[in-house]
């Protein structure tokens, strides 16, 4: 379904006329199937969020292609309603001028779904993410971090996407809420059968939810391995990463 093929990306360093470039992604290729949960693990600055932006079609790759169901992901029509995302920073993930209701309406408006139909769906959607219909009239600053992240998940799944990208979606929540949100994600995956791309630096969270993990370092894929065989990693970096986790 999602096919990332030999993607490279570099950013310009320095000023207007500077020729110096920093390579962020280097020959990255992988695929993600329907209903699969793929974890992308890497330390800060390893380029995993850049990869996320490329998958969402917000930026163009310098070389290589990102294909979603056979179409180029940079084309708005290809990803409209089928590809969605939840981001890390919950303080800015909902427009402060929007109520929960208005925020949830946004993806539906794009798809041209009638207001009345959407109103009916909204309550069940809020219920699915563990919120009550009374949240509809609230502004984001009246909600807690976990509640906002739930609203964001509701917003992301409202068009029943095929693929949901979670960019550090649980990293800024505290541990008990993290677990709640992970369980919620697992539950929703069963209902909607979508695939997740779960970008994180937290191996434990990835191991909890993902079928396969992709270990990422300095813009390169170190290793792709199934979660059940996580112990048998081959590369030195992955071994080191796991060891650090155990001592910690």
């Amino acid at each position, binding site marked *: 379904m999602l096919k990332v093929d030999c993607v490279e990306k570099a950013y310009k360093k320095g000023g207007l006329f500077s020729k110096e470039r920093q390579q962020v992604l280097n020959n990255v290729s992988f695929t993600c199937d329907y209903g699969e949960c793929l974890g992308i693990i890497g330390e800060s600055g390893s380029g995993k969020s850049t990869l996320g932006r490329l998958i969402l079609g917000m930026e163009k790759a310098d070389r290589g292609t990102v294909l979603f169901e056979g179409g180029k992901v940079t084309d708005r029509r290809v990803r409209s309603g089928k*590809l969605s995302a939840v*981001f890390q920073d919950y303080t800015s993930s909902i427009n*402060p*001028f929007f109520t929960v209701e208005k925020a949830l309406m*946004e993806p539906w408006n794009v798809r041209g779904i009638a207001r009345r139909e959407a109103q009916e769906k909204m309550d069940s959607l809020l219920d699915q993410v563990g919120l009550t219909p009374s949240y509809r009239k609230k502004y984001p*600053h*009246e909600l807690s971090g976990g509640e906002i992240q739930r609203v964001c998940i509701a917003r992301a799944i409202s068009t029943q996407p095929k693929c949901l990208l979670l960019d550090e979606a649980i990293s800024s929540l505290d541990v008990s809420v993290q677990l709640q949100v992970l369980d919620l994600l697992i539950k929703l995956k069963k209902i909607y059968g979508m695939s997740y791309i779960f970008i994180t630096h937290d191996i434990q969270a990835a191991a909890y939810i993902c079928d396969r993990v992709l270990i990422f370092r300095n813009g390169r894929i170190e290793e792709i391995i199934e979660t059940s065989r996580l112990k048998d990693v081959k590369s030195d970096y992955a071994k080191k990463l796991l060891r650090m986790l155990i001592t910690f």
Partner: protein
Amino acid sequence: MRVVKNLWKDKLAAASFLVIMVTITAGIAAPLIAPNDPNEVNMNLRYAASSWEYLLGNDHLGRCILSRLIYGIRPSVLWVLVALFISVFIGAVLGFAAGYFRGKTDALVMRMCDTMLSFPGYVMALAIVGILGVGLENILIAFILIKWAWFARLIRTSVMQYAEQGYVKFAKASGISDFKIIYQHIVPVTLSDIAVLSSSSIGSMVLQISGFSFLGLGIQAPNAEWGMMLNEARETMLTKPELMLAPAFAIIIVVSAFNFLSDALQVALDPKLVTSKKRSFGTNAKNKLQEKEVAS
């Protein structure tokens, strides 16, 4: 609607809004409202004190001060507002484009702004008046040409803050068009910044117009304009200081009304500030607690 309601609750804002509205209607309907011809010279009534026929008295040529004040609204307030709106509009369009799309668009627009801003404002205005000739409309054109770059630059900075927010990223990812994202997400959040910027520059623009009129480049002599009335009164400042009061107060009242209104507008537009006021009544807080318990 919510904004209007909130604004109405704030007494100062309501008063400011009223003052601005009255000023604008008086300016538009000047021939109907003004009691006398503003340019009629009557040497018998030089420096006359206020009377029933001339409510604010007469100036050094015996002209009715109140009528001159009312006719002066046109250049001093109405045309300044028009010039302001045009320059804010140009600045906003370019600022939104530069701040949102970044990259080459940003570089191009900002270099254009740099070029415009590198000339001192008054020199630019003088050059334009030199080319196009003397008159109010040319001064206004000069104003627009000077000010748009300043607005574009400030609006761009404001837009940049918001263009990388999560909700914009989500909108981009879910395939909403750029134009719609700007209109739905970025315009509302930057609107309060733009309101404050433009209202704070109204004051300086009113004063600049009168500055140009003093140099003889703007409004021509017999016509009334607040800044020019101040300048005329300046000659007799020591012997007849009261002549300065009318135009001075008019400028002070209008400029501060705009400032108060923009301040109140900022509060009225921001949902955070509004609800925190509401919450002090207590009932909301209780409900929220209960809901939270249910949710967790």
